[in-house]
């Protein structure tokens, strides 16, 4: 993790400004913090505090401090539930997320490279086709039917390819925005040196896309890891549990034990949170380049 930025720029703010303005400023500051804490932090506090309670306390649905700390027991119980189903789910979700992201990075960047660089009617049509995927709702049952035809319904292969197919348009969009910023002269120089298309891409372009790779990773990771709908349709079966499906199923199983339900919520929120901790800035820079100007 690179701690490159420091917070210098915000601290040396205009000391010349009038005092009155400072007072107003302070009020606004406090107000902003309080309002956003109420709206955005309280629900998280609620999750955490209830995940620590015993069943009876949690049943109060309140934000009161726990009378007994049971976070560890709660977590153990959630993990052990249904024969360690949550562990299976974590494994499955991780496999699905990681593999589909690897696919998306390679396949998406290559496609974006060609789509942006090649100027022809066909590539324009294809771009349009991919872009349409951002809007078109996936056709559910026909997709199941197709998966069954290939014999990959309810398999890792099936769900991974579906997740990839659904995320390809957005991934290509992100990459196209970045590739557009890479001067074509770089390509031309390489071509003059006799580099072929594949080499140009793998040796020169792909490494230059590093910043957007991070964006692609985190955005897709959060989306796919948190995905409920597609595993629900395309990866059914209890041995195929994913973290979100497991949470959903626990909703009926733990319906009096809110402490366990929230312990589960807490556990499955940690991975995206850690990702965010490391990649938070990339999300934005990626969006600025891809979605905003794209």
């Amino acid at each position, binding site marked *: 993790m690179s701690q490159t930025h420091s917070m210098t720029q915000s601290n040396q703010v205009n000391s010349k400004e009038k005092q009155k303005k400072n007072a107003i400023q302070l009020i606004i500051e406090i107000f902003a913090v309080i309002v956003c804490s109420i709206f955005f932090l309280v629900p998280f506090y609620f999750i955490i505090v209830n995940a620590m309670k015993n069943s009876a306390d949690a049943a109060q649905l309140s934000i009161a401090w726990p009378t*007994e700390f049971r976070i560890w027991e709660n977590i*153990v119980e959630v993990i052990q539930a249904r024969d360690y189903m949550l562990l299976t789910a974590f494994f499955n979700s991780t496999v699905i997320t990681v593999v589909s992201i690897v696919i998306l990075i390679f396949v998406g960047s290559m496609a974006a490279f060609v789509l942006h660089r090649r100027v022809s009617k066909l590539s324009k049509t294809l771009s349009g086709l991919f872009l349409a995927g951002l809007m078109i709702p996936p056709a559910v049952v026909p997709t199941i039917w197709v998966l069954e035809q290939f014999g990959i319904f309810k398999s890792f292969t099936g769900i991974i390819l579906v997740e990839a197919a659904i995320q390809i348009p957005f991934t290509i969009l992100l990459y196209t925005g970045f590739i557009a910023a890479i001067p074509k002269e770089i390509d031309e120089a390489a071509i003059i040196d006799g580099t072929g298309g594949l080499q140009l891409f793998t040796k020169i372009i792909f490494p230059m896309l590093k910043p957007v790779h991070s964006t692609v990773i985190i955005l897709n990771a959060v989306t796919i890891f948190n995905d409920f709908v597609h595993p629900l349709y395309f990866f*059914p079966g209890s041995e195929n549990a994913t973290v979100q499906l497991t949470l959903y199923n626990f909703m009926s199983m733990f*319906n*009096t034990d809110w402490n366990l339900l929230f312990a589960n919520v807490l556990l499955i929120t940690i991975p995206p949170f850690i990702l*965010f*901790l490391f990649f*938070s*800035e990339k999300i934005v820079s990626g969006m600025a380049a891809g979605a905003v100007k794209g």
Partner: protein
Amino acid sequence: MKLFSRKALIAIFAALLLLLLAACGSGDSDSDSNETSGDSEDPITLSFLIDNQTVTDGLEAVAEDIEEKFNIQTEFELRPGGTEGDNIVKTRLATDEMTDIMWYNSGSLFQALNPEEHFLDLSGEAFMDRVTDDFKEAVTVGEGVYGVPGESTFAGGWMYNVKVYEELGLEVPTTWDELLANNDKIKEAGKVPVIASFKDTWTSQVILLGDYYNVHSVDPEFADKFTNNEAKFASTPIALAGFEKLQDLQDHGHYNDEETATSYEDAIEMLATGEAAHYPMLTTTLQAINDRFPDQVNDIGFFGQPSDDPDNHGATIWIPATLAVNANSENADAAKQWLEYFVSEEGQETYMANMKAYGPYALHDVELPDDAYTAVKDMMEYQDAGKTAPALEFLSPLKGPNLEQITVEVGLGMVPPEEGADKYDRDVERQAKQLQIEGW
């Protein structure tokens, strides 16, 4: 461009960790001992598909017996219940991915699965002699008999708190009006007359489904006519009555407040603690009550949903779910052995030691023990008097998938009973066409 404060993030994260650590110190983890099986011989492992609504204590205990005795392990696989579950079972059968043993509704739902094709015919097995004819009928197609009862028979009707009844000097009603009168008194006494737990939408169906005795006892042909597209809920007054009763209770203000925020578990607590007097439910719920309120479970009685005729007061019963063996299973023999042990005297002893009956057993020579739940004894009175009828779902393969939403709508007074019934008839029509049932 720096948009987020990493410091803030780390601070929040650290606070979270600290909280976790602080909490860890105060608790000790009870680590489950991992059982290691002593047998070194390769055990056979049977897969067993069951829905996640059923309490499996009894089955699991029997499975442990079987592992000890025959070195056959059982791996339970859970699936959702309801229509979603039906669908999963159907697709798994169609794609030949069914488990060795399967737990499923008996009756027409089971018969609609094409048992001849998918399940082992057990009619020739000696242990089938122990199974009652009533049950066999529910799992018979042509000459073949395809399952054994996986649980006791149960009933759907009104669970009531006996203590509340005693306190208020009420008597078990034999007509709908008497029931409403009781409700009024209960409400006056400041208690909830009838629990509506519409957060778990499936619970809203019981008033309609449990009314089927009143239909069947007047018109035993209804189920067939319904299946053959000759009778509709909306146009059959006795059938429509079930929807009307749902609304009646709302109109009289007999339900609790916050119906849609009240869950099944909330309802159990309300009933067991006497906060509420009635809960229209299946007797299987006794198991759940016993788990959470073992001291109160015998305060709970049962009566069938009354009609307007005091002389015809009976109960609607649910035939036990069936255990069927996958015909294409590689372990079919072991699976048969499993069933044989399950219905044997020994197997049932283990079963009953871990799971009390929520109704009479569908096996010969297996009597209800004296310490059976009060509500089950109440239910037996209907059984002994011959005043029972199976629920419609055992007599007709048609059960519209949207029934639970429709009964919520009618129960909440969002739509009148006639409209609800009409909606349900159309729902059934869609299903009948999908299932390609003749006459639709």
